[in-house]
């Protein structure tokens, strides 16, 4: 995977020019330069790294290399419909579209805005610089054009859902960034939706910090074009008594990777995670989850469901890490997988790293095929084979889909799953 530094430096030069043209603060320049150089030194992660063992990013790095310095032509973007009362922030090929977005929320001292408009505010340097420590965080920091900033003040409950849409229409590199900060006892629901109709290369970073007693519902939907590459990482920090309720759904891209890292830093913090990935054709979806229990009396529940078909390849790695001081941790992690055809593949590895001695931790993983008896039962009532199979797959995914707070979004995802299942045709094995 030989990166051509020339291409990336040229791309960075473009980005810096855009910064200057837009009047962005000067502190951006050295940060971006440093980040790029760090990325060029590391390069894209390779399969000799344990965390990347099953996911070969060579095709992504090739495409990234080739297109990173290309200009992007904007064409018709898909903007999924959202609930009528939601606050929309729409980005097309990484650039904010105020025209397609809804008016910003009127919050007393709070912010729901695109990132570029917030770069002059206090603390911006801190939240921008903090891109986390995932493998492509530095690349994102160097190149990110725009994203969303959500800041909810103490004791504020935002009733409307914030719907952030990253819609891509070109075979280009995009670097979406999302920053969410909840004050004490704050509450918000954020949907981060990635969708594309061209084979883009997306490197997305999201950082969420939750103040004491706050509640975040965060739902990420990935429906990139079948030729796209999508590598995303989220870092969520939970202070004392704060809770996060996470849904992560991967339906698209040629190669998709999602790294979700949750740090339960204060006692009483709790995390609930539901993940779903559907991989067909020759696609690849890799979900890494890391639940770090760093304080006592913290709780986590994680359930990921994978559906693999044709030559689809799913990867799941879920780690529960319990620090020595995290006594009375209560953690459980499960991955269930459905293989619809021979040739479909899943590599699943739940892990426990426990350093405290008074804890309750469980992990499990199951892999199977569609239940032949259930299929026959449905068919014996006259339901055609393909529809019967779809019904059973939807039932399998239902536990996760049900966690989406918006009824419209649940139906949207079920339709999206249905569409992909129909494209599979009548090929099933029992």
């Amino acid at each position: 995977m030989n990166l051509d530094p020339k291409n990336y430096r040229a791309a960075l030069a473009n980005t810096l020019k855009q910064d200057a043209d837009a009047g962005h603060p000067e502190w951006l320049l050295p940060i971006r330069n440093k980040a790029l150089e760090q990325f060029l030194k590391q390069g894209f992660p390779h399969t000799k790294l344990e965390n990347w063992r099953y996911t070969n990013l060579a095709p992504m790095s090739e495409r990234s290399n080739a297109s990173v310095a290309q200009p992007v032509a904007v064409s018709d973007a898909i903007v999924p419909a959202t609930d009528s009362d939601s606050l929309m922030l729409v980005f097309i090929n990484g650039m904010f579209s105020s025209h397609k977005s809804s008016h910003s929320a009127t919050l007393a001292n709070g912010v729901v805005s695109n990132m570029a408009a917030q770069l002059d505010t206090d603390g911006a340097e801190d939240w921008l610089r903090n891109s986390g420590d995932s493998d492509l965080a530095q690349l994102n920091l160097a190149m990110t054009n725009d994203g969303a900033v959500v800041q909810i003040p103490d004791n504020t409950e935002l009733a409307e859902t914030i719907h952030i849409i990253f819609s891509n229409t070109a075979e280009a590199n995009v670097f979406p960034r999302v920053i969410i900060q909840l004050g004490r006892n704050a509450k918000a629901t954020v949907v981060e939706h990635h969708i594309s109709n061209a084979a883009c290369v997306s490197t997305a970073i999201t950082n969420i910090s939750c103040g004491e007693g706050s509640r975040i519902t965060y739902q990420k939907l990935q429906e990139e074009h079948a030729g796209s590459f999508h590598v995303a990482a989220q870092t969520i920090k939970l202070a004392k008594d704060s809770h996060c309720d996470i849904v992560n759904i991967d339906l698209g891209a040629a190669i998709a990777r999602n790294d979700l890292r949750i740090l339960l830093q204060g006692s009483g913090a709790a995390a609930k995670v539901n993940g779903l990935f559907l991989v067909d054709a020759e696609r690849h979806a890799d979900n890494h989850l890391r639940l770090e229990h760093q304080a006592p009396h913290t709780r986590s529940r994680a359930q990921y469901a994978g559906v693999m078909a044709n030559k689809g390849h799913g990867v799941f790695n879920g780690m529960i890490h319990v620090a020595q001081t995290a006594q009375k941790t209560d953690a459980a992690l499960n991955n269930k997988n459905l293989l619809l055809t021979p040739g479909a593949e899943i590599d699943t590895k739940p892990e426990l790293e426990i350093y405290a001695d008074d804890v309750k931790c469980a992990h499990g993983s199951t892999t199977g095929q569609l239940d032949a008896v259930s299929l026959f039962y449905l068919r014996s009532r006259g339901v055609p084979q393909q529809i019967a199979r779809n019904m059973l797959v939807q039932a399998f995914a239902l536990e996760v889909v049900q966690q989406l707070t918006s009824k419209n979004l649940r139906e949207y995802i079920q339709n999206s799953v249905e569409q992909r299942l129909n494209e599979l045709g009548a090929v099933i094995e029992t």
Partner: protein
Amino acid sequence: MLLEVKDLHASIGGKEILKGLSLTIKAGEVHAIMGPNGSGKSTLAQILAGREGYEVTAGSVRYNGVNLLDLEPEGRAQAGLFLGFQYPVEIPGVNNVYLLKAALNARQKAAAKPEIDAVSFMRLVKEKAALMEMDQSFLSRSVNEGFSGGEKKRNEIFQMAVLEPTLAILDETDSGLDIDALKVVANGVNLQRRDDRSVLLITHYQRLLDYIEPDYVHVLANGKIIHSGDKSLALQLEAEGYDALMAKAAG
């Protein structure tokens, strides 16, 4: 002739279960098949419904003149066949009513008719649920999820009432039912009876036949029908058991 089974031989896992079974059912008739355990009663039901895993090595099955064994399970159902399972499976996540709607619409589609509209469908479902004395709450539940054995059997007959099959094959529908549930189930079956519809009851016990009066009773033993008669045969079997008849067939 609604159903014509001729000299059917079938195996599973290399073991022959049906050893030349013949059976004829005309439209409007109710037939009962009784027999000792392991005789092949359920195997017959499963093969008629199209369950995979069985190998038909000889014989034929014609349904309304069509070769039934050539059809997929859904094709047989769309042609009017229904199987009431002995052990109905639980399918969490698939709604009871959603299944029925899909089944009805599949049948409409097969007959080149439009899909059933939502209002008519719900009316039909509620009517049949009331008939089967089923709680309306079950409408929002998954197929057989959390149902007791008796409730599952009742659900089978409820589905049958909604789908109105021309040939209903009921595999030990009476097992696990108390007297009250049995009466409800039997009523459901009897209300279905029409000149153009037939029922094949597979049963262990004569009791069900007190409530659903058969036109013919057959004894299935060692993979074949060894004796046929009218409803009085069931009473005879109840009194004498299968041994005498089986000895006569062998000897």
